[in-house]
């Protein structure tokens, strides 16, 4: 046994992010489309997803008066942070705003630690303050986060849902791209965000048939269900620690 201990201590310590036991905590970023955010709220609230939404960040102003999603969030005591993005605003500016929200909510970023160290004690689990997040979910958040932001939040992952079947139809308006290409199946891709847009390791994909009868609007309607499904599956895999990133790919233990 002594030999074993020696051997272990001589090994290179592995960098691992440990999170306290209990349900995973995520921050959800969204823009104006409701469907993925709505789906995550429903799934988390019902316990179907073993995740807590710590807070929501959005560049779309939802209010008590105009949004049932806002009302659902406030009933659940999940803070909704409106951050103005785009429209000539410098990315540095609004990213700084988002970072300060994250810092205020999270406290410190998760520390790197060696495998042999004991896990840190669980932190408080209320939804209002000091809620460190384990990952961020971009639930149809239509702004592009900078590589600096990604490395600042790292090593915690950021999951995105792209409304196209990668590697086809990267970038904007994949519905229109798919329609113009005349494909017979459309779909959505949940993936980890990396520095290059829509190039990160794929976690889950979902597809459905379309035909010449489907307009761009029909493509959107069919796609929205797929986006919500691919995303909540990907969130579950990550929350349940089922996902390993190997090279540019993922291993998903199911």
């Amino acid at each position, binding site marked *: 046994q002594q030999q074993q201990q020696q051997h272990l201590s001589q090994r290179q310590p592995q960098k691992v992010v440990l999170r306290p036991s209990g349900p995973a905590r995520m921050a959800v970023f969204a823009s104006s489309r409701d469907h993925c955010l709505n789906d995550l709220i429903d799934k988390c609230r019902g316990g179907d997803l073993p995740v807590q939404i710590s807070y929501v960040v959005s560049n779309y102003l939802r209010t008590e008066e105009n949004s049932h999603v806002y009302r659902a969030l406030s009933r659940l005591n999940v803070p909704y942070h409106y951050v103005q993005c785009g429209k000539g605003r410098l990315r540095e500016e609004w990213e700084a705003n988002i970072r300060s929200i994250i810092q205020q909510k999270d406290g410190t970023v998760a520390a790197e630690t060696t495998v042999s160290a004991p896990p840190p004690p669980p932190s408080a689990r209320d939804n209002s303050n000091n809620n460190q997040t384990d990952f961020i979910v971009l639930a149809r958040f239509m702004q592009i986060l900078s590589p600096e932001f990604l490395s600042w939040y790292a090593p915690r992952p950021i999951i995105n849902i792209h409304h196209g079947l990668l*590697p*086809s139809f990267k970038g904007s308006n994949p519905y229109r791209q798919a329609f113009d290409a005349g494909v017979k199946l459309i779909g959505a891709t949940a993936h980890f965000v990396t520095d290059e847009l829509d190039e990160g390791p794929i976690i889950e994909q979902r597809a459905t048939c379309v035909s010449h009868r489907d307009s761009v609007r029909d493509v959107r309607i069919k796609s929205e269900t797929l986006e919500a499904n691919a995303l909540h599956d990907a969130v579950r895999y990550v929350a349940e620690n089922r996902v390993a990133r190997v090279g*540019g790919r993922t291993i*998903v233990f199911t």
Partner: protein
Amino acid sequence: MSKRKSMAEDSATMEVAATSTTAAAATSAAGGGGAGDEQTPAKKIATIRIEGPDSKGIVAAFAQLLYGHGCNIIDAEQHTDVELKRFFQRIVFDYGSMHTDRVSLSNGIGEVCSRFTMTHDIDWGETRKKICIMVSKYDHVIWELLLRHKAGELPCDVALIISNHEDLRTVADHFNIRYEVFKITKATKREQEDKEIELMKSLGVDLVVLARYMQIITDEFCQAYKHAVINIHHSFLPAFIGAKPYHRAHARGVKLVGATAHYATETLDEGPIIEQDVARISHRHTVDDLLAKGRVLEREILVRAVLAHLEDRIIVYENKCVVFGS
């Protein structure tokens, strides 16, 4: 000798997949005969495809025309692209007891079409289409085509198999089909293709099926058989155009792999998509596993696409396909 049906000319945006009709009198019923053809009169079932700018009255005009000549509409399916204001229709009708004749009906169709500035393509259902299958060394797709054909699922005659290798001659022999080898090198490709085209035209080939034929065909070849060359590409297009798509799909870590049947055009793997499908994969699957799953998809997708073409269910426009009955 078959003649290509002439279309009213139109801009490059309108293409109707080419079929040929024969000027000669009807010989056999469409879809192959069985025993006792002398007893029952040959069924006279025609298929017409129409395309043009959308306007009121098109459906009514054609329905009235066919009824007026004593035809019975068996199947009619239409589609309107609302954005482009373009109308597409496929009508299958029985002209077996028409009280006029084919010539006057043809004239009537021409007249209605020009009234609405539509183009049309009609197959009178008298002759089976003739296909040529082109293959290299991978044999899974050609086996599928030939077995499904033997089972009577593909309403055509396989006039010829062309390959750039000797290897698959035994497959052709098994099905009693003529097999010709045309070796291809960079220098000889165009010349060989011209010989291939000449041979196919002399045999009355309407449709060329690239069944994992591994040579890239030239623009001239595509032009000779415009929207009459169906290729099977072993990826879910437009992802992974070109060579080794499964290797690249594996490297990318996609969770779905697919196959795509499309008309071959001047741009590699970018022609109008006829049919596609996908299969789920996971991290457990090696490239060989992807290839195996892909083979299953390729077989099925190409057969579906060829069948759609043979049944005149496809209209090509804006580099996409309307596929009726799908």
